[in-house]
Structures are given as C-alpha cells and as structure tokens.
C-alpha cells in the first residue's frame, strides 16, 4: 500500500506532460487549421504556434505552482480576462471554465492523479483504455441528453429563430424573453389542445389501470387456462405498429361513432372524446399489465390466505392487504399509460376530429406546417413534466423494492 502512495505522489517526467499537452493542442489546432487556413504556412503556424504556446503555459504552471488549486485559480482568471476581450460576458464565462479545466488537466496528468482511482497493477495500456472507454461513454451520454438540453435555452429566445442568436451567446438580457411561453398560454389553439390532452389522458389512464390491474391479478393466479395466448392478446397493442392500430381503429371507431351519433343521438363532440379515450385506453393496457404482473411476482400469496383465514372476504382482502402492497406497480403502470396517451399522436390523428386536437397533434402539425418557436416552449414544459414523472416512477420503484426486501435502505 505505501508503495502505491509514494508512486502516486511522484510526478511523471516533465517532458512526458509537456509533450502530451503539446500533442493535444496540436491536434486541436490541426482541425482548426485545416478548415480555416488558406495557405500551408498559415496552417503550419497555427499548429506549431498552438503547441508551443500550450507547452510554455503548461511549463509555467507546473514550475510556479506546487498545488493544482492555486494553478486553477490563476489559469481561470487568465482565461476569463482573455475570454472577456473576445466575447464579453459569455466569452468570460467560457474562458473561466476553459482555464480551470486546462490547469486541472495539466496537474492531473503531471501528478499521475489519473492512476489514483484505479487498481495499482494495471498496465499503462489498460489505464489508457480505461479513460478512452470513459470518453466514448461520455460522448454517447452527450448524444443522449444534448437534444433535450438544447431545447430548453432556445425556448427563451427573443427572436423567432431556432438557433442561438449572438445576443443569447453573449448572455445579454434582451436576447432572452418569455414571449413563446406567453404565446402558449394565451393562444387559443394551444390552450384548447392542452385542455384536450388533460381531459383525455387521465380518463384513458383510469380505464386502462382499473381493467388492467384486475386482469393482471387474474393472470397471476396459479391456474389460468391459455395464459400465454391471453397474455399475447393483451400485450399486442404495444407490439402492433401504431400505424396499423390507427388504421384499424379508424374504420372501427367511425362505425361506432356513426352508431352512437345516429342511432343513440349523442352529442358529436362527446362521441369524439369517447372514441379517442377508448382508443388510448387500449394502447395503455400493455404497460399496466406488464408492470403490475411484475409487481405481483414478488407478492407473497400467504398474506391473502392469512387474511382469509382471519375472516376477511375477498374484497376486503384485496383493498386492505393486496392493493397497498402492489400499489407502487399499479401507479407506475398508470404513469406509463398516462404518458402513452399524453404523448400519442398517430391514433388520435386517425380517430379524433378537430375538436379533439391534443397537444402532440398540435405539435405535429406545427412541425410539419407553420413551424413556430412556441413548440420549443411547449417542449420545455413537457420535459419538465417528464422529469417529474420520472422522479415519481423511480421513487416508487425503490419503495417497491424496499417493501419486497430486494434492496436494503
């Protein structure tokens, strides 16, 4: 153990750090040089000059400062000043971050800090691969999350553009505004579609949760004839491509609609809502079935037997014993069903009429035809809603695992 610590405290050789830094900067300026320089000498100057400056800076930091912290402060200040000269507040902020990162990186390399979290017996190649792998994974995570993060600041754009304006990049107050949000909250079209979504999704969810939970309890009994076939039928709305479901439902519900309006003489708008709600309820069912059956796997059957033994009738047993225990599964299934309906556009396009226009439908037409930045404001609101839902589901999952004793704490 002691050898590991002494080894880590000793810096690598100065030429190693300097050449690594020089190579990295040369690589970056190579890319920049290829695309901007017009003649070869200019290109050479970019690459060599960049590398020399970087090596000099690294050498100065290492020889002047003994600890990473002091070097980071100075480097950050330098970066901020340089950045402010180029791009005011935005530039200063970028320079601050860049300066900190550069100093951190130089000391991280020079004092072999990269070795510290790893097992001491790893070879240099393994260490290199470890960090390359982390870098690749980081890039994939960036790919996953960037589109969602980019939408948020853009929704505060003061212009009707879908990209960052120079004012936004300089962090000027008049580059930002809430006008797209104002548009969303005052525009009739958006408000009506939002209202429709808020009406349709919860009712469809209640339908699929109540029927789905009952069926899941039935399916988890020990003797169910044709269990696989029943399961396949109940899961099928999730498997069949939406466009095919939508087409089938289009014919079916126009027939049902004619029947309800013509024969029973019901209100047209009301019938429209009924059609969309029933269609969405079917789409949500597989999610309820899957989550609730998964929860029931961990349910201890002797509890219901014990309850029956003490004189509880099946209904009491269900509501007082079984329901509280499987509730997390039921709720997360319900959330899945809710998000399915709240996010659904293909089926509602085919089954609904203009008075049932939901939020996704409105977004879809917006994206296809008159693309307006209000969509970005709506998108941001929806991302916030999905963060809330995700948190709820995650908390419920942990609670359910705790109740079943799968994980401690």
């Amino acid at each position, binding site marked *: 153990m002691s050898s590991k610590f002494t080894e880590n405290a000793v810096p690598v050789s100065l030429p190693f750090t300097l050449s690594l830094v020089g190579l990295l900067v040369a690589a970056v300026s190579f*890319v920049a040089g290829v*695309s*901007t320089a017009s003649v070869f000498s200019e290109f050479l100057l970019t690459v060599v000059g960049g590398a020399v400056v970087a090596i000099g800076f690294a050498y100065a930091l290492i020889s002047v400062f003994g600890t990473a912290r002091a070097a980071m402060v100075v480097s950050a200040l330098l970066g901020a000043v340089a950045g402010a000269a180029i791009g005011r507040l935005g530039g200063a902020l970028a320079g601050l971050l860049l300066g900190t990162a550069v100093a951190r990186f130089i000391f991280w390399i020079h004092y072999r800090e990269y070795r510290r979290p790893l097992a001491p017996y790893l070879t240099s190649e393994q260490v290199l*691969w470890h960090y390359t*792998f982390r870098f690749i*994974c980081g890039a*994939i*995570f960036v*790919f*996953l*999350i960037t*589109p*969602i993060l*980019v*939408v948020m600041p853009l929704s505060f754009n003061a212009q009707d553009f*879908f*990209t960052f304006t120079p004012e936004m990049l300089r962090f000027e107050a008049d580059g930002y505004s809430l006008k797209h949000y104002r548009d969303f909250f005052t525009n009739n079209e958006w408000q009506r579609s939002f209202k429709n979504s808020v009406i349709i999704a919860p009712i469809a969810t209640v339908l699929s949760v109540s029927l789905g939970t009952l*069926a899941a309890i*039935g*399916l988890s*009994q020990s*003797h*169910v*004839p044709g269990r696989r076939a*029943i*399961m*396949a*039928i*109940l899961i*099928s709305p999730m498997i069949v*491509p*939406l*466009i*095919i*479901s939508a*087409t*089938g*439902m289009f*014919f*079916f519900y126009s027939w049902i609609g004619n029947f309800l309006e013509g024969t029973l003489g019901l209100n047209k708008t009301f019938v429209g809502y009924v059609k969309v709600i*029933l269609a969405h*309820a*079917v789409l949500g*069912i597989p*999610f309820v079935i899957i989550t609730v059956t998964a929860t029931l796997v961990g349910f201890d059957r002797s509890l219901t037997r014990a309850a029956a033994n003490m004189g509880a009738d099946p209904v009491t047993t269900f509501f007082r014993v079984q329901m509280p225990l499987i509730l997390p599964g039921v709720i997360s299934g319900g959330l899945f069903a809710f*998000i399915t309906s709240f*996010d659904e*556009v*293909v089926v509602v396009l085919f089954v609904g009429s203009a008075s049932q226009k939901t939020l*996704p439908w409105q*977004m879809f037409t917006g994206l*296809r035809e008159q693309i307006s930045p209000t969509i*970005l404001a709506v*998108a941001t609101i*929806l*991302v916030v809603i999905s*963060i809330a839902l*995700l948190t709820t*589901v*995650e908390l419920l999952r942990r609670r359910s695992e705790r109740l079943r004793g799968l994980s401690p704490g």
Partner: protein
Amino acid sequence: MSDTSATGPVLAADGTPLKRSLARALRVQKTRALMLIAPLLVFVLISFIVPILNMLLRSVDNDIVADTLPLTVEAVAGWDASTGELPGEPVFAALAQDMIVAVAAKNHTKLGTRLNYEQTGLSSLFRKSGRAIKKWDAETVGPFKEQFLDLHDGWGRIEVWETIQTHSRRVTPGYFLNAVDMQLTPEGAQSQPENKQILIKLFWRTIWMSLMITTTCILLAYPVAYLLANLPMRKANVLMILVLLPFWTSLLVRTSAWKVMLQQQGVINDVLVWIGLVADDGRLVMINNQTGTIVAMTHILLPFMILPMYSVMQTIPQTYVRAAKSLGATNWTAFWRVYFPQSVPGIGAGSILVFILSIGYYITPEIVGGTKGVFISNRIAYHISSSLNWGLAAALGAILLVVVLGLYWCYDKIVGIDNVKLG
C-alpha cells in the same frame, strides 16, 4: 386411515370424494381468474383485435364492382376477350340498368375510383358517363350499345371490359399484388411498369434503414450498458437518469429537438460554421433525408436497447473475466471469449425490440425524413388519408404486420414476453 383406503375413495370433510372436491376447487379457481381477466380481454378483443382483422379483410375485399354492377358482372362473365370483339347488346343493356341505379345512389364515382387503381382513365369514364346517364330513366330504350359508345369512347375499348371482368370477383388478390409492385391483369399477375415500381423499394428501404438504426443502437448502447452494469450502484443510478430522461421525454419533443439541431440554420450547422469546419455556404444537409431519420430514430430508440442490455449485463459476474485473466487470457480474449458471449441475450432482446419499433415508425420519418427518408408506414398513412386507396393500405399493413408478428414470435421465444422490463 387404512380402513377408508381399503373400503373406498378418500373423502373430503363434507363427504364428497377428495378427487372430485379438488377438481371443483381448481375449477372455481380457474373461473375466478378468467372472470378477472374477462372484462379486459373482451375490451381488447372488440376494440383492438377485431378492428385490425376487419381492416386486414379490406385487403382482399372487392365487393364494390359486384355490388354496383350486379347485372353487368353476371352478363359479362360469359364474354371472351380473346375474340377481339366488344361484348354484345345484352351486356350493355345490363350496364344501363346498373348504371341508372348506381348514378341515382351516387355510387358510380366510387366504382370509377376503385377501377382507376387498375387502369388509369376509368375514373373519368364513369364520372362523364354518369353525368349523361343521370337524364336516363327506366323507360330509356335501346339499343344501348350505340348510346354508350356515343357517351364515351372508353366503352368501345376491349381493355376496359377486360378490367371490369377481371375485377368483378368479390375476393381479389389485386391489392396484395399491387403492394408488391405487381398488378392483376386479364392475363394474370404481372409486374407493374418500371416507373410505378416504388413499393418493393420502399419495403427494402424500410428494412435496410431499420437495420442501420438497430446496428447503430447496438454500437452505441453496448459501451453505455457495460459501463452502467460495472459501476458501483450509486454512480450507475445517477448515470441511469441520463438514459431514462430521454426515454420518458415526449417523442415529439425529441423529434422537434432533432429538427432544431439538424436544420441547415440549426444548432449543429451553426456550431460547425462557427468553429470553421464548414463554410457558411456549404452547410451540411442533415434533415429531410435518410441521415435525419437515422440520427433522430437512433436517439429515440437507444434507451430501448440500453435497458435490456443493462439488465442482462447486470447478471454477469465480474469474477468470470477476472478468472479468465488470471488464467492468462489477454484483455481482448477475456472480453471476447468470456464476457461477450454472456451478453449476447441482451443484444438479441434489444435488437429485436428496436427493430420491431423502428420498422413501424411513422411520426419521426414524417417530420425529419423528407421524401428520401420515409418508411412504409408513411405510405400506408398516405393511402388512408390522401389517396383513399384503402385496399392497398390494408394490404401494405398486412405485410408489415406479418413481418412484425414474426419478429414478435422470435422475441417471445428468446426473451419471453413476461420478461419485458420497463424502466
């Protein structure tokens, strides 16, 4: 005890034989389970399975010709096109009777549209003739052959009569033939003219692009799933949020985000121009083509690949790889011969899931795919809502459904539908 077993069957407490008593208990249990499932099963069957089957029936359903022109169809059945002569007066008399009824019910334009799928020009033939026939009534007298030929030259063309004769059957393979770029002609099934062959190409493109998306998803998901499975629980849970957040975010939000990112005046192009990688007049075209569809759909479907892979990789003990290394395997051998084979079920599960989902996608290709990056689903939607060729849409849908159900069956065999995990 020995006495009862010697004298007769074992009895339950109430005196019935135990065997029968147990059977009854089992029956009660089964009935109760089925009673719980029944409401949902009936609901799904009526409002989902039956409509889809009904829709699929439309792909072979061809009642319209026989229903609109019942007498003509009967009369023309005996006519032989190979003689090179037009059908005789009785056929035209039957046509007159049928058309008078059809025009009064305004059915003739629908029939024209239907037959126009098979032979261009028939729609206008029926519409124009209908306008004149409106003035006829039951008293109009023949000979009808001349009157029809005066109405429109179309009635004098052998091909028109051949088309009516060929498509008078109530069940037709015609739509399915159309769906694979063939057509039903009087001489049997033949391939469409070159310039009309687009559907087979579209099917191949759908499959090829779904494969591309699946492959990119595998390549991107594997490292992430590996990292998540091998990190300590606490760190993995934090990183998991980065996977689950896109999973929970609205599909349209992600699609619009990609539209914002990929446009020519969008974020990616702006960044590339700003750092100087791309000239301002040479902005990359990344949207309204296949690139746009593949990038956006890879992003949208990536969580569906990561999650099954992760749940499989979680169960692989790290000790196996360590044992392999201590026995002298190199890093690569230890991974490729020991770790990778154990992670294959995860890859299989994720791939089938992503492939099933991508092959039927509609929204994202519609928005970011332009004309070159659309899928077969977009064609189905077009035939349902714009061209109103519902039979062809149903046939395309049936083919797509068969492919998806086949894959679903594989998925059920490999993973088991009970083992699907969400979140």
